[in-house]
């Protein structure tokens, strides 16, 4: 059974159909890349799957459960983790505390009024930080981190409740090329180790073609193509969208 089954998903903002009848599935242990030009509806799709946005139509099933109308926090509890395109971490807390916050929620201790929070789940937090190579920076304030490090912190936070499905919205945006390769390799490792499924958007085609098991191409809110890396690479319509052609957004560079 698919981990994630999306059927006929749709969302409009005013008159604009941001996502229009999108259907796809993610299999266990699969790394599915979602690509498309700016404004194709990738982030909107993510926000509907993880509950940040409510869909106008369509269903989202996770492990067979219909989660289409669920609030984000319940979807998270079910085992869906995510990172944000524009990072959302607490700048006034240390790197470790940001991870501890997710762990506190996972262990249902978020309403505790008495125990000093920094002493709780420290080792667990450090293990997660170690996985993403951030443990040396654990005591630094998140507010002073470089952008690439924030992205890695986001990944550690998203892994805190051992999710079955991870949604990564441009996990390597703003990183230097070498860093990018490392992070994508790390993500691929995590998928292999823990049988997590990953759905990720990315503008960097090397990351996509190098690591994805399958690729979903969106354009103007609709599915343009779906298939293996080779199938998508050779698809004429995808080429038209990315290299410029009639009826598209006009040759926007893939990593713009």
């Amino acid at each position, binding site marked *: 059974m698919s981990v994630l089954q999306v059927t006929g998903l749709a969302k409009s903002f005013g008159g604009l159909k941001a996502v229009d009848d999108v259907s796809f599935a993610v299999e266990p242990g699969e790394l599915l890349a979602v690509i498309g030009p700016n404004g194709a509806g990738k982030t909107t799709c993510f926000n509907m799957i*993880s*509950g*940040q946005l409510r869909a106008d139509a369509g269903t989202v099933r996770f492990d067979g459960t219909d989660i289409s109308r669920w*609030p*984000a*926090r*319940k979807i*998270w*509890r079910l085992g869906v*983790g*995510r990172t*944000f395109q524009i990072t*959302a*971490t*607490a*700048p*006034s*807390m*240390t790197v470790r*505390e*940001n991870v*501890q*916050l*997710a762990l*506190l*929620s*996972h262990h249902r*201790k*978020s*309403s*505790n*009024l*008495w*125990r*000093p*929070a*920094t002493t*709780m789940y420290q080792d667990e937090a450090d293990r997660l930080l170690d996985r993403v190579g951030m443990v040396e920076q654990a005591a630094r*304030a998140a*507010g002073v981190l470089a952008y690439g490090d924030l992205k890695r912190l986001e990944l550690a*936070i998203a892994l*805190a*409740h051992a999710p079955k499905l991870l949604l990564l919205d441009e996990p390597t945006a703003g990183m230097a090329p070498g860093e990018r390769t490392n992070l994508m390799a790390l993500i691929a490792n995590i998928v292999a180790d823990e049988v997590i499924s990953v759905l990720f958007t990315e503008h960097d085609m090397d990351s996509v073609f190098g690591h994805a098991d399958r690729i979903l191409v969106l354009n103007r809110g609709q599915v343009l193509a779906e298939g293996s890396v080779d199938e998508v690479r050779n698809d004429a319509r995808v080429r038209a969208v990315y290299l410029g052609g009639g009826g598209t957004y006009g040759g926007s560079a893939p990593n713009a």
Partner: protein
Amino acid sequence: MGFYFAQFLTGLASASALFLVASGLSIIFGVTRIVNFAHGSLYMVGAYLAYSVVNWLPHGVFGFWAAVVIAALAVGVLGAVVEFVLLRHLYRSPELFQLVATFGVVLVIQDAALAIWGPEDIVGPRAPGLDSVVRIFGEPIPEYDLALIVIGPTVLLAVWLVLNRTRWGTLVLAATQDREMAAALGINQTLLFTSVFFLGAFLAGLGGALQIPRETISLLMDLNVIAEAFVVVVIGGMGSVPGAFLAAAIIGELNAFGVLVFPQVTIVLAFLVMAVVLVLRPQGLLGRPEIHAHAPAHVREAPLQPFGHRQRLAVATVIVLLAALPMVAGDFTLVLATDILVFAVFAASLQFIMGTGGMVSFGHAAYFGLGAYGAALVVKHLGGGMVSGLVAAPLAAGLGALLFGWFCVRLSGVYLAMLTLAAAQIVWATAFQWQEVTGGDDGILGVWPPGWLADRTAYYYLALVVCCGAILALRRIVYAPFGYVLRGGRDAPLRMAAIGIDLRRHQWFAFVIAGVFAGIAGGIYVYSKGSVFPDELAIPRSVNGLIMVLFGGIQTILGPIVGALTFTVLEDQLSRLEYWRAILGAVILFVVLIAPQGIVGGLARLADAVTDRSMREAER
């Protein structure tokens, strides 16, 4: 029939005056996002100035109307000056700074008016040519009321034309809708903001000047009008001039007819309507929802550090010194020290909701007062003793916070702040008007501790134990997971839902905690004074709390204690002087402009700078 029509016209006439004040406030808020508490002061100055100019000009129709216009123009210039000297430097500051700064202006203007026009109420001149009544349906209607009913819509039309038919107006509307975009388009904001303040202040001054034939001129006009002006601005929609007109008409009529139907709840009505509008339609009747949710401005905050040995030792030393205080201090000092302890808890609870929770409260006095009244009511109506009174205090405050908090956490930013203000005014008006239960303006007297605590020293020790315990407990909560969740919600609300946290529920609970601790302070306070009056629930009490938090530094947990100490001692010392308000106002403005991190934050920064330098020197 005739009577009701007359009542209707009276309502419209007061609506006109209210509209003028509120429209200015609304325009200023729309463009600059500053909640201008000093707007009522501009209104008051308009009235005083018009009175002086009328006496100075030749008497007659021309003299009167010329005086009105001259006064309004002068107030407009005053508003522009305030913007230029002060508020311009605060556009990027948190709401707390802006509000407290404008309150500093209130204090300064109040004393300036006292110095110029004296403490006595002044009866203004009648408007020449409009000083008699006309009979409509047999009822006498003052001619001047009819004039006001015409003036209101005329000004609305004029302002509407300026905003919609001039280039300047287009810029104002653009900045109201999307300030960042307007800035990005290269609009000269400096000039725009100053001129907006001129127009807003002009309208306030006009409103005040036009009031002089109807109302005695007094030093209370400023705060009396400002609360109602906020109501109108919020109901109409912040930034919307037609909205202000509509809302002023609604409130004017509500007051006119409310008196007939529910004479007991007239003051509550307006704030109830404001609260309902905020809950159902936060952007107001004719306001537009904000396009950009402006990211709240935060003072940059470092991660929390647990107390080391040295800090623990320092805290223990302070507590020991406080315990030893009765050995050296007299009764007078102990009373002051008890006050300081009480306000330290009050300020700490306010800092908890604002600094840790990121929710600005303009009405925290509600919970302090609910605590005080909770204890006093138990004594008065149930004959309870002090223990039951001190239990009732946090209970009453907590229940109030449970009720109001449920609505408040559904809003954010300035809308939330306005709802906390409305909630506090509802509680205040209830205490003020519900004579049978609360004693109204006369308050509740005779709330004394039992004999063994009647001694000042004994009561001081009770206050010391309760207040130190409360502050340490609050600090514990800040460092506990709950406190971290609140800070996380303040810094990155989006993230909270994405790690499974029901942020709204936590914020609601935080509201209750802050209320309970403010209630504890109120309970200790009422037994130390022996009485409670509606003043404990009023706007100045809330603002005092804000000033203490500001003095201490909003992001430090120990700040409120230093803030309460500084403010209480300062107020105690200054209030012996004639113009103490002006001095206090100047101190406030100084802190806002020069030491925005407050005393504790400023000292911490200074200490950092010194350590940095000595470390660098050591390295050499």
